[in-house]
C-alpha cells in the first residue's frame, strides 16, 4: 500500500503513464474515479457503467499521452471529466436514451473532440476486427494472434497446433489470413455508410 502518500502533478501523471509506471497509474486511477462515478450515477448510469467508462477514459488518456506530440491543454481533471462525459453521452445516445444531463457544476469542460475522435475511430476499427475474428473462428483466430501479436515463430505454432511441419502451418496461416482480410476489409465499406458519430 505504498500508493497513497505521493502527490503527483498533472505533468508527472502524464510522464508516468508514458513510462508505464504502475504506481502512477494507480494513483491516477484513484484520483478521479469518484468524480466520474458521481457524474455517471447521476446521469442514468450504474456503477459498472461508470467503471467501464472510467477505464475507457484512462485508455484514451494513455493512448493520446503516448503520442510524443501530446500536450495537456487543460487541467488533467478537466480532461478526464470531459472525456468521460463525452463517452457516456455517446453510450446514452447509442442506447436511444435522451436524457436530461445533470452536470457537475464545479467542473469545467475542455474540448477533447480530437483526442476522442482518434480513439473512437480506432475503437470502431477494433469492433470490426472483433466481428471479423468471430467470423473467422478457431483455430484460425488463435493462429493469427499467435503469429502477429504474440510473435510466435512458425515452428512454435506448428508444434502448438500439431501441424506436421512449419510449411504446413504457414499454409494454414495464409488461408486464415486471407479469410480474415476478406471479412475485415469488406465489412469496412458497410460500416462507413452506417455510422455517423457523436
Amino acid at each position, binding site marked *: 500500500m505504498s500508493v497513497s502518500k505521493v502527490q503527483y502533478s498533472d505533468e508527472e501523471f502524464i510522464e508516468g503513464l508514458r513510462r508505464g509506471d504502475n504506481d502512477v497509474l494507480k494513483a491516477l*486511477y*484513484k484520483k478521479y474515479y469518484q468524480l466520474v462515478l458521481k457524474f455517471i450515477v447521476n446521469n442514468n*448510469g450504474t*456503477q459498472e457503467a461508470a467503471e467501464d467508462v472510467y477505464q475507457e477514459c484512462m485508455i484514451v488518456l494513455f493512448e493520446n499521452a503516448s503520442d510524443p506530440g501530446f500536450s495537456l491543454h487543460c487541467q488533467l481533471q478537466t480532461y478526464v471529466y470531459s472525456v468521460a462525459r463525452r463517452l457516456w453521452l455517446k453510450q446514452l445516445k447509442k442506447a436511444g436514451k*435522451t436524457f436530461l444531463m445533470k452536470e457537475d457544476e464545479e467542473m469545467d469542460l475542455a474540448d477533447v473532440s480530437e483526442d476522442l475522435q482518434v480513439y473512437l475511430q480506432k475503437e470502431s476499427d477494433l469492433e470490426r476486427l472483433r466481428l471479423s475474428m468471430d467470423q473467422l473462428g478457431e483455430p484460425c483466430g488463435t493462429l493469427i494472434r499467435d503469429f502477429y*501479436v504474440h510473435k510466435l515463430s512458425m515452428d512454435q505454432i506448428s508444434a502448438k497446433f500439431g501441424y506436421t511441419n512449419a510449411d504446413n502451418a504457414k499454409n494454414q496461416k495464409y488461408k486464415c489470413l486471407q479469410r480474415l482480410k476478406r471479412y475485415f476489409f469488406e465489412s469496412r465499406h458497410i460500416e462507413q455508410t452506417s455510422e455517423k458519430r457523436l
Partner: protein
Amino acid sequence: MKESEVFDLYLNGGLPAEDTRQFEQNLKNDAVLARAFEEHKALIASLELENSRLGLKNKLKSVHRELFGENTRILSIQKENSFARRHGKTIAVAASTALIAVLATVAALSTGGYLLKKQNNEILELKRNVMELKYSNEGIVEGITMKKSKPVYAPANLEGSAFALNNKGYVITSYHMVGSADSIFLQNEETERCHARLVFADQTIDLAVLKVDNSSVAKNWQVPYALKSKPGEIGESVFTLGFPREDVVYGEGALSALSGFSGDTSMYQISIPVNPGNSGGPVLDEQGNVIGVIKGKITGAEATGFAIRANQILQSLKNSAPDSLKTELLVQSNKKPVLRGLKRPEQIKRIHPYVFNVLVYKLD
C-alpha cells in the same frame, strides 16, 4: 512466395537486402500491391492495438479491484428511462419557461449583489441531495427498489417535502427547494408522481406555493388541517411529517423559540431532529394545526430545526399573492378541527396523504 509472406518478412526485417530493394521498387510502381500492403499493415496494427487495449483494460480492472475491492456494486437506480419518455414533453416545456424565469432571477439577483447560494450560509437548508445520500442509503434503496415493480425514474436533482394547502390542489413547500427548478414533481404513497408548477413564491420568507397540473389528482382531497393564524407558544409539543428518505418519516419535539436564526421573527425554532429532505414539510401542533413549514437547521447543531411561521405565510399570501390567486390560496379547507382529540397515529393517518415528496429536476 505468397504476397503476404513477403509483407511479413519485409516488416520483420527478414527479407534479404536485394529483395528488399526490389520490393520497395515494386511498391512504387504497383498501386495494387501498395494498397494490399497498406491493408496488411492496417490489419496487423489493429490486431496489436486490440491486444494492447485489452491488456490495459485488464490492468485497469485489477487496479480497480485493488483500490476499491470487488464488492462495491451499487444497484442501478433506473434501468429504463421510462421517465423521460413519459414526461419528456412536460419537462421540455416546463424547462424552457423555467429557464427564462431562472435566467431572469439570476440576472435580478446578481445585479442586486445578492447571490442565491449565499442566501442562507448560516443555515443548512434541508433539501436532500440525492447523490450524497444514495451511497449511504444504498442498502435501503436496494431493498425498496427490488420490491416495487413501478416504473423507475431518473433520480431527481433535489428532493424535499411539501404539503397540501387546501383542497384546490395547492401545495406549500420551501422556495429554496423549487426556486431554480425546471420541473417539479410530487408523490407519496397515495399519489402517483404528478407534475406541479410554481404559482407563487415569497423569497423573503422562503415560501413557495405549487399547484398540481392534473386537477384529478386533487379531486378527492379533504385536507384535515389548516394553517394557524395565531402564533404558537413556547413549550408546546409539535410534530412533523416529511421525506428525508423515500418513505414518510415522523418526527416530534417542542416549539423551543419564537424566533429563528439570529432573531428572525418570521421563524420558529423547534426541537425536532430534521434531516436533508425535511425542508418544506409541515410543522403541526397537538390539535393538528399547521403552525409552520420546516426550513432548515443550524450547521452542526442536531435536534434543532427552524420553521417558517404559519402566520407569516398567511400574511404573505394575503399581502403579496396576485389578486387572481389570492382567494383560491386563502381558502382554508377545514374550519372544523377534525384532528383535535385524536391520538397521534390516527392524526398521522389522516395527514399522511397530504404530505408529499417533492422531486426537483434542473437543467444545468
